[in-house]
């Protein structure tokens, strides 16, 4: 099939691209402003293929300064977007450890002891210290609290109504069509196959969509982005090494909780010092609450869900959340390498936008508005080229898009953020100081060195738990987990003193229950498994099986044979398994994370 512009993924970046583009595709009299080259006589054919079953199924926090979004919608009225609210108050809160199980450095333990000792004179309440300020680089004053699902739905609805672009959910893109580093379009995913990808009755090979321009905005773990990176390469010296999993609940608060919509809390210190957290209040007495589990949290059984449940039970937050009702749950990976993880932003026939183009700013802790802005900048460049009748070559796109991006606030702020998190490679306290140093020196100074790959820094289980468990005990736990198909992090955390989660069936629920009650996770048949283990012997030899521990949906489990088992119907496409796989085959991770269908079916994240 031939189109003019094929778009991969619908999130904030593509929302920004299509909104800016679509506004210029019609003349005032409603006639097409730009004729299609792929279908002469027709308007420009702009088709967006989105993997998820609905454009509202995205996951993010979100609190954003919304500068790019407001530039696109100058009259933006948050009341028109469900769950949106202007930021009304903002605090930075250090959470002490009420359980005694959190792994803290000597420096942090000393400071905690100090705070607890002098809690009568210091503003320490509910095991937390509210800092008297929010650093300028972090604040979201004049910003918005959003649900990304509802925002995407709102944007998508306007786009579809315009009639100038088409968005097709439930249509995963398998790969880019590339010839001599020129992108010719995309190939959609095969349908009517079994879990191994073998054709069954009703087999339909994925259609090739040829396009003069392919816009790739498929997120941090998108199959097409990674396919292009693999085949075209990254700029010299660039590499994606820093990741995190963000996991959140959307919680309906008790009626007596009177937090104003737009209340924003940024937290750090608990459940583990490496984990930043957030609490944002939406209209209707609903809150988004979540944590980030970063790749520099060196625990070889690192995980997210259990920690999230401990996070929400911290006394500082639990006073608001106890008695609440779980409405939604979701998880995603964040690509936190920023500029250092930037791919080639454009090439012959393609351009990259959004998180997979390195737009997330880890200093300010924001990505949605940055992604949106990359999309608008590309659209401006594309319109310039279309109106001039110029082809989408690397040189033309470099001038029309890349130069725009390099001279924008996006670039300026990404340079400040570039090395701001390097200090965390040496420890949490160093990392926090490093962020401040980078911020106040506008990125000229930083602490720490170039990050290691996420799995290079990990110790073995025996090393990490030295002094707590013997290798024999650890082996016994792993064998028991293999027999029962469970993760090792639960028994290990239990033995480390983390209290058992008392399930109440309403807010505190099992990991399996949260898939259905919260994420409404589903997957249609007729597609191949999208998580594939290339070399099973490597899996058998892998001691940590971090893919199992980090899996946000418990979709990957242990087996007695030592080979992980993948259940597609539980996968939420967070991609954590991919960046936590320590083994490689021909330069790629042994765990292959491909395009697939299904996942979250909640539009409230």
């Amino acid at each position, binding site marked *: 099939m031939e189109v003019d512009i094929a778009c991969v993924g619908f999130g904030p970046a593509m929302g920004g691209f299509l909104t800016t583009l679509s506004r210029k595709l019609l003349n005032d009299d409603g006639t097409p402003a730009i004729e299609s080259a792929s279908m002469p006589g027709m308007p420009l054919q702009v088709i967006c293929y989105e993997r998820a079953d609905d454009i509202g199924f995205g996951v993010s926090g979100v609190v954003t300064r919304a500068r790019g979004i407001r530039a696109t919608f100058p009259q933006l009225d948050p009341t028109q977007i469900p769950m949106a609210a202007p930021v009304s108050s903002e605090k930075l809160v250090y959470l002490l450890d009420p359980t005694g199980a959190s792994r803290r450095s000597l420096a942090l333990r000393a400071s905690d002891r100090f705070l607890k000792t002098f809690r009568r004179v210091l503003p320490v309440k509910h095991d937390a210290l509210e800092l008297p300020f929010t650093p300028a680089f972090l604040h979201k004053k004049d910003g918005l609290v959003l649900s990304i699902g509802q925002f995407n739905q709102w944007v998508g*609805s306007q786009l579809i109504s315009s009639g100038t672009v088409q968005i097709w959910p439930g*249509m995963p893109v398998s790969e880019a069509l590339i010839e001599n580093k020129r992108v010719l379009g995309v190939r959609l995913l095969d349908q*009517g196959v079994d879990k191994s990808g073998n054709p069954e009755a*009703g087999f339909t090979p994925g259609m090739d969509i040829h396009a003069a321009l392919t816009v790739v905005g498929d997120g941090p773990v998108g199959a097409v982005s990674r396919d292009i990176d693999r085949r075209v390469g990254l700029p010299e010296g660039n590499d994606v090494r820093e990741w995190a999993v963000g996991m959140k609940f959307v919680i309906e608060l008790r009626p007596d909780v009177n937090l104003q919509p737009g209340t924003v809390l940024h937290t750090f210190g608990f459940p583990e010092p490496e984990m930043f957290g957030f609490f944002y209040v939406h209209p209707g007495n609903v809150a988004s609450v979540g944590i980030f589990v970063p790749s520099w949290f060196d625990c070889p059984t690192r995980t997210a869900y259990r920690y999230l449940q401990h996070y929400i039970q911290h006394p500082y937050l639990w006073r608001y959340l106890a008695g609440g009702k779980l409405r939604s749950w979701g998880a995603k990976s964040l690509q936190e390498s920023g500029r250092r993880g930037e791919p080639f932003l454009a090439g012959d026939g393609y351009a990259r936008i959004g998180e997979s183009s390195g737009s997330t700013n880890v200093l300010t802790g924001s990505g949605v508005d940055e992604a949106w802005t990359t999309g608008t900048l590309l659209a401006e460049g594309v319109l310039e080229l279309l109106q001039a009748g110029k082809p989408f070559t690397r040189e033309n796109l470099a001038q029309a898009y890349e130069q725009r991006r390099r001279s924008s606030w996006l670039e300026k702020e990404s340079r400040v953020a570039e090395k701001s998190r390097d200090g965390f490679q040496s420890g949490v306290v160093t990392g926090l100081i490093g962020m401040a140093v980078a911020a106040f020196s506008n990125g000229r100074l930083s602490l720490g060195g170039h990050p290691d790959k996420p799995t290079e820094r990990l110790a073995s289980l025996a090393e990490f738990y030295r002094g707590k468990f013997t290798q024999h005990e650890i082996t016994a736990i792993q064998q028991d987990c293999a027999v029962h198909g469970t993760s090792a992090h639960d028994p290990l955390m239990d033995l480390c003193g983390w209290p058992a989660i008392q399930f109440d069936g309403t807010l505190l629920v099992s990991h399996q229950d949260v898939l259905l009650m919260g994420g*409404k996770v589903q997957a249609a048949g007729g597609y191949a498994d999208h998580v594939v283990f290339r070399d099973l012997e490597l899996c058998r030899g892998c001691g940590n099986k971090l893919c199992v521990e980090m899996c946000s949906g418990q979709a990957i489990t242990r087996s007695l044979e030592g080979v992980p088992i993948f259940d597609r119907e539980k996968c939420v496409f967070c991609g954590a398994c991919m960046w936590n796989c320590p083994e490689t085959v021909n330069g790629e991770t042994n765990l292959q994370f491909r395009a697939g269908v299904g996942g979250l079916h909640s539009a*409230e994240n």
Partner: protein
Amino acid sequence: MSTPFQVVVCASVVPDPLQTLEPITGPTGPALKNEMMLPAILDPWAAHALYEGANLVKKVAGSSLWLVSMAPKAKLQQVMMTVAQKVPLQLVAVDGPSSGFADAQQTATALAAAIRNISGIDLSKVLLFGGWESASRSAGVTLQLVGEELGMVDQFQGVDAITPKDDGSFEVLERIEGTRHQVSLCAGAPAVLGWATGSLGEPQNNPQVGMANMRTIMPALQKAVAAKITSDGLQYSNVATPKQQRETRIVKDVPANEIANEIVQWIQQE
């Protein structure tokens, strides 16, 4: 050669399965909390009707397929992003409620009016398809009422198959007790068929079908007529979601009988 049919499928939208539904009282009566926020799908039984209708149209040359749908326009637009990829169709959009609390008679009147207004429609050739009940309130009467308003006296419910004959007649299988089907032979259109699941799986997403459909779907949505639905004469004495209790356990290598016994004991608990 078979006589061409004009297949008109009535289908509304319902929340995507597993969504949390909560009835509330709005200004006009019961409503679903945050209904516009919930992702939606085409009503499942009616979706089967649509796929069966498309299949019939493909088999009988000269036949046409319309999808007549009453739902909030923005919701319908969003559902079309998925449905339009499935089968070629012509959309007739009616802007109205889809929560399941609308009066079935008023809904039927609005749908019947929309059908009468379809350009080129010949009611004598119409096969009116739909779900034998909706997933919203499952009253199971709306399609029958539409048929009655259009003067269609041959009505079938719980349909799983239709087989057209060359003389314009067709055979219908309707579900009856004991997992059996009643076989009926109908002389021809017009007729009403309220579908159960039929025998076809959900069609695959087809980008070419989607692009072709979009040319007519957007104009149809823009022309959507507002339905006159009021709460006059309708009173709900009580609205509640079914009671549910949940417990999830993961087990391995446990015999199916043992699992079944445990589930039975759990169900029998108070």
